[in-house]
């Protein structure tokens, strides 16, 4: 897929040349502190924690998109499939130096999955053994909010949620992303 390769090359190039870097552990430990702080503040009400993480992500996403557009210097995506490639090969690449796999497209091209085979936010993490965390907490839920906030700023209303997480004992960490609608009507619909 031409877009995929182009996006990958762009992501690599931006990561190598236009990104100031810090040690991943600083981010890992900081994020870990956030989550455990939230769990303490909300008394281990994991549903609330998920929501709060999503909210934080949303706030970040709305500002992160500017940084992304500035660094990647890229124009509008033609369709949702291109968007997916940009998110995985450029977006995640230039911020976290990871490239989750895009897969499991629905026939109408409105829904896809991101498979994370590595996740710097979740290094060293083991969910508490209280019988609930494994079923209720989505540790990396901030990603969902970030995608939602960022894409909203470029006129896409999406829904993102995790469906599985290796921290929960699943085989893979998978996020499902669904396009709800384009916000401005001028945006050409995907007509593959």
């Amino acid at each position: 897929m031409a877009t995929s390769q182009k996006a990958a090359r762009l992501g690599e190039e931006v990561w190598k040349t236009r990104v100031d870097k810090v040690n991943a552990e600083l981010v890992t430990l900081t994020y870990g502190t956030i989550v455990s702080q939230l769990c303490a503040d909300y008394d281990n009400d994991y549903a609330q924690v998920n929501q709060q993480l999503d909210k934080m992500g949303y706030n970040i996403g709305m500002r992160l998109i500017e940084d992304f557009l500035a660094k990647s210097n890229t124009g509008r995506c033609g369709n949702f499939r291109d968007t997916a490639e940009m998110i995985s090969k450029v977006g995640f690449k230039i911020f976290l130096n990871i490239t989750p796999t895009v897969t499991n497209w629905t026939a109408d091209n409105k829904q896809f999955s991101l498979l994370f085979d590595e996740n710097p936010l979740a290094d060293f993490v083991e969910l508490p053994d209280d019988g609930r965390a494994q079923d209720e907490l989505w540790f990396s839920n901030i990603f969902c909010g970030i995608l939602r906030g960022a894409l909203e700023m470029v006129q896409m209303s999406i829904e993102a949620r995790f469906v599985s997480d290796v921290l929960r004992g699943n085989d893979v960490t998978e996020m499902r992303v669904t396009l709800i609608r384009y916000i401005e009507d001028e945006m050409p619909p995907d007509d593959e």
Partner: protein
Amino acid sequence: MIGVGKAKQYANVLDKPLGRGRQEVSLSAFAFLFSEVVQYNQTQVDNIAELERRLEDAGYAVGARVLELLCHREKGNRRETRLLGILSFIHSTVWKVLFGKVADSLEKGTEHEDEYMISEKELLVNRFISVPKDMGAFNCGAFVAGIVRGVLDNAGFPAVVTAHFVPIEGQQRPRTTILIKFAEEVIHREARLG
């Protein structure tokens, strides 16, 4: 798909290369995350002092873990028993791993025996947070002060650590100084060791 070879999930964790701490992410990622930490904590407190304390506590949790990580990785099999040793460890190794550079300076306080200062012209966490005027002297460096306290406390050198802005003549932005005041027992032990 061009992939960067990074540490994968190994079936047997013993296969994980010990040097996996060299991975990097973007500074922006940390910046965004950190500013959310500040924003979130603002909603949980009533005043600046409490905000700084919560940031400091968050930093403490990071510092404690950083110490374990670095001691195992960088120091191999040596333990730190002397004051200057641990300070130098923080000023060089810890700073380098967290912020990509050694701290600008490490100084001993002139007025008090138990005070030391690590200074940074532009502390990472302060670089991208602009504090509104009505928040007075609030210093995000409280987070870093917490990290330093976490390291010192867990290494056996309890101290009170605070972050201060120090205006420098000729410089638009003030310098950040992390002030470390060691507990009495540390000073006494240091004197005993000669």
